[in-house]
């Protein structure tokens, strides 16, 4: 059993995105965070101070732990932003402003 089977979901066609250069498939309607979780990815930020990995914590847009860089724009909350075809998702290092 998985959540899609349980709810008898028939999602639209999967789209391809990349995460740190690696292609992933994502379902339409999912947030960036949900797409990453579905691909087995749980961390996509390293903190400004200690450089520790972070991912989803609150899941509802309150905690800002899941900040990620999408299409070159840093500090997007992965749990809120819907995934779009062709999205280039990158691990956000620190503030996301100084990575090259």
């Amino acid at each position, binding site marked *: 059993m998985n*959540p899609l089977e349980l*709810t008898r979901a028939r999602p639209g066609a999967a789209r391809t995105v990349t995460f740190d250069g690696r292609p992933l498939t994502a379902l339409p309607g999912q947030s960036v965070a949900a797409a990453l979780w579905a691909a087995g990815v*749980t961390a996509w930020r390293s903190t*400004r101070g200690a450089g520790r990995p972070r*991912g989803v914590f609150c*899941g*509802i847009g*309150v905690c800002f732990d899941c*900040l990620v860089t999408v299409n070159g724009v840093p500090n997007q909350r992965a*749990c809120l932003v819907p995934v779009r075809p062709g999205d280039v998702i990158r691990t956000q290092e620190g503030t996301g402003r100084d990575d090259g």
Partner: protein
Amino acid sequence: MAEGPRLAVVGAGPAGLAAALAAAARGVRVTLVAAAEQAGGQFYRQPAAALGAARPQALHHQWRTWERLRAGLGRHLATGRLTHLTDHHVWCVAADPVSGTFGVHALRGPAQEEGVTVRADAVLLATGGYERVLPFPGWTLPGVVTAGGAQAMLKGGLVLPGRTAVVAGSGPLLLPVATGLVTAGARVAALVESAGPAALLRRAPALAAQPGKLAEGAGYAARLLRHGVRTLPGHTVVAAHGTDRLEAVTVAALGREGHLRPGSARRIRCDTLAVGHGMLPHTDLAETLGCTLSGTAVRVDDEQRTDVPGVWAAGEATGVGGAELALAEGHIAGCSAAARLHGSAPAPRRSAAAARARRRLREFATALDAAFEPPAGWAGRLPDDTVVCRCEEVTAGEVRRAVDPLGAGDLRTVKLLSRAGMGWCQGRMCAPAVAGLAGCPLTAGRRPFARPVPLGVLAGLPDTEAGPPDAD
């Protein structure tokens, strides 16, 4: 175009929906302003439409109530009596003393970069709540999520955080979260509840006064038992382990004084820890409007009016008590707002049933709160090197130093001395822990901006409080 006074309802969860439907049915033009793409709030969070879920109810309960709310929403949308602005993230509500109206300032779209202002004659705040999590070593590891977060990602995105989960903390949310995860195909290695049987028994009379609620709990427990989920009452998570992601947790039994029972620690392998210690109300919008708070919740009267004229509040924002209480409060608030906007008093008879439900459910919530209070001594057990403020990476030791020798005695002073609470989340995540460590009361934060606002949006606001013209 519909006629009549205008009410803006902020939040489309159970309280906001019940309020919007009650007001719209009583001749008010309602604008429902909400952050999500679909109505429902956290409790009735719906899967994204593009996921094509034929049976979302498999992840829900009280689905009939949802169907009734959804049908009512559809009817009022069709008549134009109600407008639903989705994907509108409200950052401030301001009163305009000149016109006597309110401006509801929101950011539109997933990027939240476009400013929109909705004008209304009255405002009803149904902003809900968020989860309280008390820290422990390892709680910042990827794979550790809030219990509500795991549920939100499951209901909304139809995804699981991992294969093997431990659900832990305290409070009535843990049962449905564990049940949801196990029903959707995760293995739940343990349900770890810090309240022991004794704490629940002490509140037995108040809890037993709600047979429906007890049956609901028993239903979850039976499903967990069927799936072979081990429950550990009177236990707590001592630490989460892993290098770059969660690999295991250590749990231990709590003694009567809140100490850990020697020799009771055991390690459980898992890739997910869904953890929570109850909920806190979202009070930022109310606080900025000048509404008096009572503890961490918005204070309201019998009609759900705040002490600011023209501002009502309902649901978790006025004190955490669950969806059923939120529905009752929302209905009462909507009836009151409609009557007052038409210059009359609400007929008590029309919401007598809701008022009775509200009284009964508030008593139940108080009993639950007492039964599920955090284990004594949790703050003292926290090692100095554990990160408490997740945003600014401030440790328990740094918070303790702000108190002694530096002399901080409240959340604000701890923040100024240690940066705890100064980051992106503005202290929403760390405030309960900082209060526990500093030995000061947990007070609602003052956040004039309920969410980050682009400077361009602020620059685009006119100088007067009248705000830009109606969105539309």
